[in-house]
């Protein structure tokens, strides 16, 4: 009718917006159905070789993408609570890929779910056995005596503990990403693990290996509304393929939180959260006191301004406490994961880290 009379509705922003919304609604319906039967999103696709695997521990080497790499190999130490593929989510969204394309020779200490036989693993096993073993294997594989280390979250803490106990280690430079030191600033974790309300010994005794559901419930309790809001935002953006892909990768990573050995969990709760022993300088591993002043190698610490898991106040003391002369703290806007993945990481965190390391990797 409109065509015959020559009449058409005026193109106002409101009609344009309504038309867009109707289109999106149709797409939501179709893509929602597709999503229901879709396989899990692919992650961790940079080509790699497993060099060593022992129970929960796995050391991988990523295949170099350049003909010429920096002399010093780079070992990434991941947090034992999560899979390392957060650092290799997808092409163009991968910290590992960024490093490979910038000429670094990249290795990663990744973790598998611990078995019941590993229920008694403690911080000592990680710091005095797993990390030194992986460093030895990186030296052997690369043929280089020196190694640089990047530790993410608890992986950063384990790297710091290792370096504090091995002043003459082959590690030449250390990069920590959102690494907790002062656990008194992690208010909510402390409340959840309070001695008066939580019987950690009984809990560890009962479970042996702490189920992943308990670990992820602890993380989710910090932002209880976020999961539900995330689902609403997913529905709202179902028409947007890029959003859905990114969301599903992050969702998969969150869902694949790892269980923790009871021994490690018990020490984290008692020594770190309740006693704040690392910050106070009273933490002992293998009979030796951890003194961060003994760390004298160049250190870069990247902190997230709005980190809700490791608040900036919990990670800030690292730079003050280490004995290094060459040390730098970089505070970036964003949250805990935005240092490692996402647009913020691509734009800010990775280039900064790459520039800091490149001159220190020859």
């Amino acid at each position: 009718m409109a065509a015959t009379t020559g009449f058409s509705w005026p193109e106002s922003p409101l009609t344009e917006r309504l038309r867009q919304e109707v289109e999106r609604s149709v797409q939501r319906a179709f893509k929602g159905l597709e999503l229901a039967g879709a396989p899990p999103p692919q992650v961790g696709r940079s080509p790699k070789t497993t060099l060593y695997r022992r129970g929960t521990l796995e050391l991988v080497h990523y295949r170099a993408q350049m003909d010429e790499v920096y002399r010093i190999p780079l070992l990434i130490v991941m947090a034992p609570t999560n899979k390392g593929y957060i650092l290799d989510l997808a092409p163009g969204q991968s910290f590992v890929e960024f490093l490979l394309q910038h000429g670094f020779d990249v290795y990663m200490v990744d973790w598998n779910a611990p078995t019941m036989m590993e229920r008694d693993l403690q911080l000592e096993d990680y710091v005095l056995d797993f990390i030194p073993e992986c460093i030895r294997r990186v030296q052997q594989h690369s043929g280089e005596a020196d190694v640089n280390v990047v530790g993410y979250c608890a992986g950063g803490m384990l790297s710091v503990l290792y370096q504090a106990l091995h002043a003459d280690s082959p590690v030449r430079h250390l990069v920590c990403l959102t690494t907790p030191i002062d656990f008194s600033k992690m208010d909510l974790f402390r409340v959840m693990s309070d001695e008066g309300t939580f019987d950690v010994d009984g809990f560890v005794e009962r479970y042996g290996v702490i189920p992943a559901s308990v670990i992820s419930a602890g993380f989710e309790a910090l932002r209880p509304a976020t999961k539900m809001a995330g689902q609403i935002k997913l529905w709202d953006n179902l028409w947007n393929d890029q959003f859905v892909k990114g969301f599903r990768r992050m969702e998969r990573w969150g869902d694949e939180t790892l269980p923790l050995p009871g021994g490690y969990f018990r020490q984290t709760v008692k020594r770190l959260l309740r006693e704040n022993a690392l910050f106070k300088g009273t933490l002992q591993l293998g009979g030796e006191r951890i003194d961060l002043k003994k760390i004298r190698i160049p250190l870069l610490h990247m902190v997230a301004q709005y980190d809700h898991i490791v608040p900036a106040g919990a990670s800030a003391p690292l730079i003050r406490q280490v004995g290094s002369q060459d040390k730098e703290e970089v505070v970036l806007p964003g949250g805990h994961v935005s240092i490692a993945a996402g647009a913020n990481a691509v734009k800010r965190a990775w280039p900064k880290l790459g520039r800091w390391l490149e001159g220190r990797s020859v």
Partner: protein
Amino acid sequence: MTEPYFFDPLQLWRDAVSKLEKSTNERANAQLKAPGVARSLQDAATVSFGLQQAYAKLIENYLRQANLPSRKQIQDLAETLQRIEDKLDGLLPVAEGLQPSRTRRPPAAVAAAATATAEKTAARHSGGKARRTRGAGARKE
């Protein structure tokens, strides 16, 4: 350029969801810090885990009666297989392509070296020219 203002209920709804998420998180965090709430949550978690364990025990008994393996037994079997795989992996030679050379320099250092070389070459050329000029002048003299 700013978009012309018009009433957009969907955008209002999106903003409301974000605000609700933020305020709920803040309220929940504040409440979690109260010892009474923390204790109640721990109690609820303990009851929940206790129920889960009781249920698991019940299922285990049923599976034993039915002569079927439990999830734990299958997991134990998977762990045993994993350990065997680990040992086999250890026996296999690591097959990787040719290793790249470890001679890479930072782009800034490469650029500085290139500039220095270019300057040296330019200085040599201009020096040579000057010498040639001087030589020609001397011959003329």
